[in-house]
């Protein structure tokens, strides 16, 4: 079932995504120049997450891929989150 009805991402969309990514980069720089401790790290990582999501959805056009592929990608991030969580728990409760 090789159907060749692939989605073509318009040039316009790609340009808009780039502009958002660039703006978010400068927002990150501004935010991290204000010293808010742990909050700064959280904010920087959240923005990086949003940027990552945009790259995956539009540049890597996951938005228009099959449900299977999107679930697989999501599962990889869930797996990574679990690895991080388990490692942090191990680190926090180690004597």
């Amino acid at each position, binding site marked *: 079932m*090789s159907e*060749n009805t692939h989605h073509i991402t318009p040039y316009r969309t790609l340009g808009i995504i*780039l502009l958002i990514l660039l703006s978010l980069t400068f927002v990150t*720089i501004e935010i991290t120049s204000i010293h808010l401790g742990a909050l700064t790290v959280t904010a920087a990582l959240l*923005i990086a997450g949003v*940027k990552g999501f945009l*790259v995956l959805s539009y540049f890597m056009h996951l938005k228009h*891929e099959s449900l299977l*592929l999107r679930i697989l990608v999501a599962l990889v991030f869930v797996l990574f989150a679990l*690895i991080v969580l388990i490692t942090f728990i191990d680190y926090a409760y180690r004597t």
Partner: protein
Amino acid sequence: MSNHENHTHVHRDDEAQKLGMWLFIFTELLLFGGLFLVYSIFRMQYPENFHESSLELSVTLGVTNTVILLVSSMSVAISLTAVQKNNYKLAKWMLLLTVALALAFMVNKYFEWGAKFHHGLYPGSELMHLLDRGHHLYFGLYFFMTGLHALHIIIGVILLLISYVKIQKGKIQSDNFMHLENAALYWHLVDLIWIFLFPLLYLIS
């Protein structure tokens, strides 16, 4: 797709090719993910050392390289759209632009690393032995992570150049573009990793 009259055509499975590329990308994500995890744990263990060390990095160079990679990620995406729209000339120019930006990234990296070596800030240097363990770990991770990332840039450039030649030879066309698509996916991966590397190494201090 396949018809009975035309037996000369080569069997192709675009979906499988794409899935294969994504499976490879998953391993790459977990490879860098593991390194991010190592970085986070040591950062919690040596917060002061990591803070002082990260101040040694040039934010200007980091920002420049971030902008370069973001633009290059768009240019390679434009190249794919152009191929799908039969505009091979634009596609080739966009690939060349992407490669040029990648080279600019590497030149920046060369100066950045050069400055670190000049100041004796590299694993195993005399200065490093006098500094605390956290500094050693920070720069070890800095060189390993940015080095591994730079290696991916070089591989990405090779893949993009192969795509360029394939467009030139007519082997990548608007109905047969998986090679370019996968090369582009690889290039976006390089961008994706940098999106997380940049704030962690350069900004959060």
